[in-house]
């Protein structure tokens, strides 16, 4: 079986994630969409690892997961602060800095 379906799936997931980032207002959801993009990458990595016959991709996938976890920590902290300050998690509300 060719790896193509997996890769296509991962591409679709990635696109969904990217579009989600663009369309959703809630910071948490936006962030989750980013996570989706990372996981789409993981799928691709694992697919290629299998296709290539080595483990590097799988290792990378683990790293990405770890990094994503770290990102969650940092991200939630930031989003929480904003939420507490503004009583809103909408990314559109934070638009003082412009031009």
């Amino acid at each position: 079986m060719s790896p193509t379906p997996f890769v296509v799936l991962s591409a679709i997931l990635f696109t969904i994630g990217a579009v989600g980032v663009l369309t959703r207002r809630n910071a948490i959801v936006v962030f989750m969409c980013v996570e989706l993009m990372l996981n789409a990458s993981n799928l691709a990595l694992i697919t290629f690892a299998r296709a290539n016959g080595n483990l590097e991709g799988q290792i990378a996938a683990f790293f990405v997961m770890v990094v994503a976890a770290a990102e969650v920590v940092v991200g939630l902290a930031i989003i929480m602060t904003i939420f507490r300050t503004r009583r809103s998690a909408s990314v559109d509300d934070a638009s003082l800095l412009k031009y």
Partner: protein
Amino acid sequence: MISTATTVLTEAAHGGHVPVVDPGSAGSLALPLVLVIALPALGATVLLLGGRRTDRFGHLLGTATVAGSFICSLVLFFAILGRDAAHRQVSLDLWTWFSSGRWTVELGLLYDPLSALFLLLITGVGSLIHVYSIGYMAHDERRRRFFAYLNLFVAAMLMLVLASDYVGVFLGWEGVGLASYLLIGFWQYKPSAAAAAKKAFVINRVGDIGLALGIGLIFTTFGTTSFSKVSQLTSAASAGVMTAIGLLLLLAACGKSAQFPLQTWLLDAMEGPTPVSALIHAATMVTAGVYLIVRSQFIFEYTADARLAVSIIGTITLLMGAWIGCAKDDIKKVLAGSTMSQIGYMVLASGLGVAGYAFAIFHLLTHGFFKANMFLGAGSVMHGMDDDVNMRHYGALRKAMPVTFLTFTMGYLAIIGFPGFAGFWSKDKIIETALAQNPALGICALIGAGVTGFYMTRLMLLTFFTEKRWEPGVHPHESPKVMTVPLIVLAALSVLGGLLLLNDWIVTFLAPVTGAAPHEEPPLPAIVISLLAVLVVAVGVALAWFLIGKRDVPREAPAKVSVFTAAGRNDLYGDAFNDLVIVEPGKSFTGGLATFDRSTVDGGFTGTASALAGLSGRLRLAQNGFVRSYALSLLAGAALVLLALVVVNLG
């Protein structure tokens, strides 16, 4: 009538040889040669830098330096007079003025019979006019400065006629232009004087285009601009080039000598003090154009076309000047018109080639005498009439100013060509030669002589005869001695100037410079031509007598006049033409260019700047503060990057 002394040269001329400038070393003449320029130059420097400290003796110093120059000129003149014809050219290189590539210009002096005569005229008449000015300018608080400028003029004029190189001539050429500018505008507080001064300089500069380009063409053609070297090379140059050089030099001459079409400045130049008009705008500077043409005979001899152009210009101007002279009521403007006209004669003569050069110079000298005489006389009249120049306010002054009247009469008789007087000899020769070479021009010259008789008689009648038409409160009186003595001397010269032609002396004397002409038979015997000329003049005089002398002269110029008079009064519409064709379009062009400079040229840059700022202002709106739109731009960027990669690698 050609004397034996010049036979050799004459034969050479027959063989197509044009005299070359081949001077010997100045030797013992070096000192006077340098002094002749240095004295007035020094005078000018001292008087200009000395400031008020020199006010007391400024006029005396100024006169003394020119007198000293005159003595040097005499010394030089008699020194070469004692030599044989072949050794009358001497030169003195002072220092190398500048050099570049193969072009080296020496600041050198060339003294030959031509310069010799000019030197005597400039310093001689110059001295007399300086003396006269002591009296004329006695009450002007800036008299010292006036003498400084006069000295500057004399120095520059001497430089002009002594230079051994076209560039040296240029130095003197613009030097006299400067002096003329300063002196025309001497009474600067009068806006008309200041404007006239500027006009004179600017129009002269138009002529100088010719000199500058002429120098360019001479250098390109011969690789040198010194008279002696150029004169040795001209025989090998092509006629076309020589014509071009000739026409360029003619343009220069037109500017300086107020010839058509650059004549308009001369009438305005009468704004200057009258001694200035006498010295610069009658006797010397305005004849520089004639000098230039005669000096460049080694060029003009190889181009009949350019010579013809010279003659035609001269003829046109002599008629125009005479015409203007007929219509003016301002005594100085009549004289100015007359000057234009007389220089027209000289230019005409110098265009006639070998046969005419000497007569051009001859007329130049006699004109220098009688016109200076009459200008100073006019100055004397004005002096007595409280500086009124309108002849309609004169009349019957012969009794009030006897000396002025008598001396002026000598000048009058000379200019109209009364037999025996200086002008008779010189003008007659020009008409004779012109008729021999180009009958059409000759007849014009003849007519011009008649008109001269008319307008000069009109001037005499309006000024010295007819009834009094003085302004109330004016009490004409004779001028002081210091002014009348120069008048007397000049009157004497006006009478006796013709002696120069005795035994063809002047022709012979100038032959080493101008070449000697083969004798040409005029279409009519010489004596007939002379009689004819006298007859024409007599008609003119008689006409004036009947039109003016026999009638009442209104104090106000009649408004209803013929087209011809109106044209004459308006300087034949020369200024109107210039205004219409050059000044006004020039002004609008300048204005348009200023707008263009601001809006288009500078606007192009400032416009770019503001366009960038506008772009910036619009682009920054994209930075709208919404993180999602940033993300969109990021995604778009990713697409762009991908697209760029794909397009490049598929293409």
